């Protein structure tokens, strides 16, 4: 069920990706639906699931963008692992917590991408700080809005839906 939710989320993220590419080219430089998806899924606290989710979501993003193939997969895997690691030790609930987690996720993702691009192409990304700031703000706000909508429609804490049941 959790994987099904992830798959549906991935399809929605890809749909948003396609729509933005069609109507607002370069919008993905300031907003990432994949980070929202991976952060949300990773907040379930499952490290293994978070790594797989990061790899798959990142590869899909790479496949349909002009980035180096594997770049976003790498960064999202790091994001997924870190978020899952933190949430497996801290109890995070609520829209604000999700927003803060998203902001951290975007910053980590952008820093990882910056480092990788610099290593692989020997050319640093221009206006990195400004881009990261805007992307962090927009992605966090949009993610919080989606989270709030999920609260309204699911009538439960959305993070509980992706949290692994406790084993005896």
């Amino acid at each position, binding site marked *: 069920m959790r994987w099904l939710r992830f798959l549906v989320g991935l*399809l929605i993220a*890809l*749909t948003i*990706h*396609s*729509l933005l*590419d*069609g*109507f607002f080219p370069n919008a993905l430089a300031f907003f990432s639906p994949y980070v929202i998806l991976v952060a949300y899924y990773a907040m379930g606290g499952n*490290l*293994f699931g978070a*790594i797989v989710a990061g*790899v798959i979501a*990142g*590869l*899909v993003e*790479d*496949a*349909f963008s002009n980035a*180096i*193939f*594997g*770049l976003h*997969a*790498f960064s999202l*895997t*790091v994001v997924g*692992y870190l978020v899952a690691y933190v949430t497996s030790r801290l109890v995070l609930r609520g829209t604000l917590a999700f927003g803060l987690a998203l902001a951290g996720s975007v910053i980590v993702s952008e820093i990882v991408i910056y480092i*990788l691009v610099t290593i*692989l*192409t020997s050319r640093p990304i221009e206006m990195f700080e400004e881009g990261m700031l805007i992307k962090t703000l927009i992605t966090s706000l949009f993610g919080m809005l989606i989270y709030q909508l999920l609260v309204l429609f699911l009538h439960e804490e959305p993070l509980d839906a992706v949290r692994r049941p406790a084993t005896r």
Partner: protein
Amino acid sequence: MMQVAVERRPTLLFLIVLAVLFLLMSTSQRTRVVGETRTLFERTVMTLFSPVPKAVNQVGQGGLDIYHGYLDMRRAVSENVQLRRRLAELTQENLILRRSNSDLARMRSLLSYSEEFTIPTLLAEIVMVDTSGRFKSAILDRGSDHGVEINDVVVHPSGLVGRVILTTKDLSKIQLVIDRGASVGSLVERSRRQGVVIGSDRGLLSMEYVPNMSDVVVGDLILTAGIDGVFPKGVPIGKVVQTEEGADLFKNVMVQPSVDFRSVEEVLILHTRKIPAEVARYQP
């Protein structure tokens, strides 16, 4: 067994995955440099998820088409309304211009006709005309205040209309030449034979006192003779449409008036020189 082992060592899995991905990126970067833009793995991922962008594109394109169609329709409706309004304005303007043009042509005709006369003239408009009754008359929009007098002659570029028989301050009544009580001293243009044209109930004019032996044929133009002390000489009255020898000494000559009294709108009033009453009444 394998999954359990992996799940128990997620950090190890994480590092392995990162290493594989870094390798993938390096490979991708190299193939990109030599010209191949997509690796097999990349193409596989794209193929797997390609229905999503395709569907989004189709739906988006359809939505855009509908939206643009709606915009085009609204633009067309708005343009249609504007064009209809413009058409109505232009039609109205055209009617005014045509009327003005027609008025101008008539005025020019009258003005050029008035220049033919050495006597003072006055332009007037017919406000009422009655040619259907027994007494055929018309009302003009000029009266004594404008200098109109009894027995002033009324003409049109096409011919003689009649004479003034009554005036008020701002209107005047004229007896049309086709009235049965009207009589005009006249002559045949070609043969200069004189006679008297009088009105008749049939809408035609009758030329009286033309001897049987005189030279008058159908088609001859009849003009005023200027011998009656009212009408000036040389104004067209009409054309002979019928002529036959009468039982007595005179011919029966029927004349078609030059003027179509039902279509006349503006006329000229000629202030002819009047014969003093005492002279007219004088009998030796």
